[in-house]
């Protein structure tokens, strides 16, 4: 299949995001998965790129056979055929020990240093919006080796500084994670509906890696509340391949519950 044909393949924005997520998972890695798109991406990765990946859910299920798309990180279908079901303290304990490579997170805001807000918008004492709170997100970002954030790309959702730091990224910049005593490597990738971002190794600031088809780096900057680093080698995000879409549609999400 050549590029021209590939360009003609129709896909939804969420299908693209699932593919971008899937490609970030390396074989043999353990992945802390949330429901929704991260799970779809993880299942796609499992079937295409990483047959030996291992999923972890904060309710305690480790390495289940994800034959069914679970609705929740904790339902019966989530720990389908898991060989072991851990207590919550052990799930996070094993992560600290070094058994969790990648964590997928969401949240209402992410800032230039990859800090995430899931607690309050506005002043904490008199919040404009009260959000869910951390859940396991703080633990995942404090203890896993690498964190991938997925979320909508809007200026108020990508502020220079989060209204409340629920979940640690690089905090206030280089060396701050280490000074704070955190053990994991911190934020690694940000998947938004506009592009794929990483972080500059020296400054720890968010940096564009690729812009999704139909978007430009300039547009992404417009939708970002801080100065996004744009290196020379940014590329267009590779589109979903026919094979990715086939597996996504036929095997991962045959009822199209998540990718529309």
């Amino acid at each position, binding site marked *: 299949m050549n590029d021209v044909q590939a360009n003609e393949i129709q896909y939804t924005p969420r299908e693209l995001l699932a593919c971008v997520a899937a490609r970030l998972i390396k074989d043999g890695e353990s992945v802390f998965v949330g429901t929704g798109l991260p799970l779809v991406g993880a299942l796609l990765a499992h079937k295409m790129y990483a047959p030996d990946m291992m999923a972890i859910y904060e309710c305690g299920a480790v390495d289940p056979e994800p034959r069914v798309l679970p609705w929740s990180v904790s339902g019966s279908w989530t720990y389908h055929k898991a060989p072991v079901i851990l207590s919550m303290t052990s799930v996070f304990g094993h992560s600290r020990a070094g058994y969790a490579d990648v964590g997928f997170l969401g949240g209402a805001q992410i800032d230039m240093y990859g800090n995430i807000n899931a607690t309050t918008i506005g002043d904490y004492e008199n919040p404009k919006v009260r959000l869910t709170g951390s859940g396991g997100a703080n*633990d995942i970002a404090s203890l896993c080796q690498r964190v991938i954030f997925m979320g909508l790309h809007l200026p108020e959702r990508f502020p220079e500084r989060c209204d409340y730091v629920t979940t640690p990224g690089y905090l206030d910049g280089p060396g701050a994670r280490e000074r704070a005593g955190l053990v994991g490597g911190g934020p690694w990738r940000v998947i938004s509906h506009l592009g794929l971002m990483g972080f500059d190794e020296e400054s720890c600031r968010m940096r564009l890696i690729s812009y999704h088809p139909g978007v430009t780096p300039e547009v992404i900057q417009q939708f970002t509340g801080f100065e996004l680093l744009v290196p020379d080698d940014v590329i267009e995000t590779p589109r979903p391949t026919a094979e990715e879409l086939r597996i996504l549609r036929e095997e991962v999400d045959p009822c199209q519950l998540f990718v529309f």
Partner: protein
Amino acid sequence: MSHANERLFDHALAREAKLKKSRAEKDKRMPLKDAIAEFVQDGDSVIETGFAYVRGPMAAFWEIGRQRKKDLVGIFTPGGMNTAWHEFGGMEGCHVAYVGVEMRGLIAPFRRGVEAGTLKVYSEWSHGGMALALLAAEKGLDYVACKSMLGTDIMKTNPYIKQAEDPFTGAPVCLVPAMYPDVAIIHVHHADKYGNGRIWGPAVNDESICVAAHKVIVTCERIVDTLDIRANPYQVVVPHYTVDAVCEVPFGAYPGDMPGMYYFDRRLQERVVRVEWKTPESTRHFYDKYILGTKDHFEMIQIIAEEEGMNVIEYLKQLEQLACDAAYWGLGSWGVGGERDWKYEEVAKRAI
């Protein structure tokens, strides 16, 4: 009586409460109404079992509302449908690790309460951090030193945890003290009349909360003979000596999920979260109709079944059975069960 928060981290008070409990095998069965009346007192801090939609003691929670308990302090790890009472004076504040319904978003009454300042958030936690506070209580620890919550605003907005320097290594650590809620309500699959409780699926924090709490109410799908428990102790997560009351409440986790028995009622949950609780007025209507307007959990299920025009319990049992077939009875994959004529796709569309 001291405020619940003053009791919450008091090691000596918690030990006193447990020294007083008899270790005898006493028949602790009682109606749910009586257990809630006796063991949930106005002003108590309350922690619940399970995780999100799974194995939550929903019948007990509705009964707390029915009895118009006041000024409770919620411990939400996570909180979901158990956060609504504050709009009717039932809850004055809470300790929050998470309140929400995952992809379906926020719980409106909780959001309204916090934003209006009528529901106090006494402390912010991560799930892992709060789980450690409960673990510390179970393992007899004054506190533990962990790597969660460091560097974030959680450290600043939780007055119960502390940053410290590890005296062994000099590294920064977060100290989490043992937490002792006043009441734990734990819903299990099987319990004997003495309180030994057995579950399937994730235990989450249950092995900790039954030891951490001053008072423990066990609700169960079914009372089983104690010989049955003693013949297979491996899934028993609640030991009898921690338990004050045992209530047989079939479908006690409804509309949540009971692993191996029934799936959660997605449609009802969505209706409650998105429609019934959208405004204070609609929440009041829900409260009046389904809680105050029913005499117990079963009458509530009955009303819902009539509204839905189907036997919701039977339907959810079928859904769960389909999952369990594949997961635990070795049928290998969806739809191979043979007996049921549903296809995975149909089930998934309905359930997910």
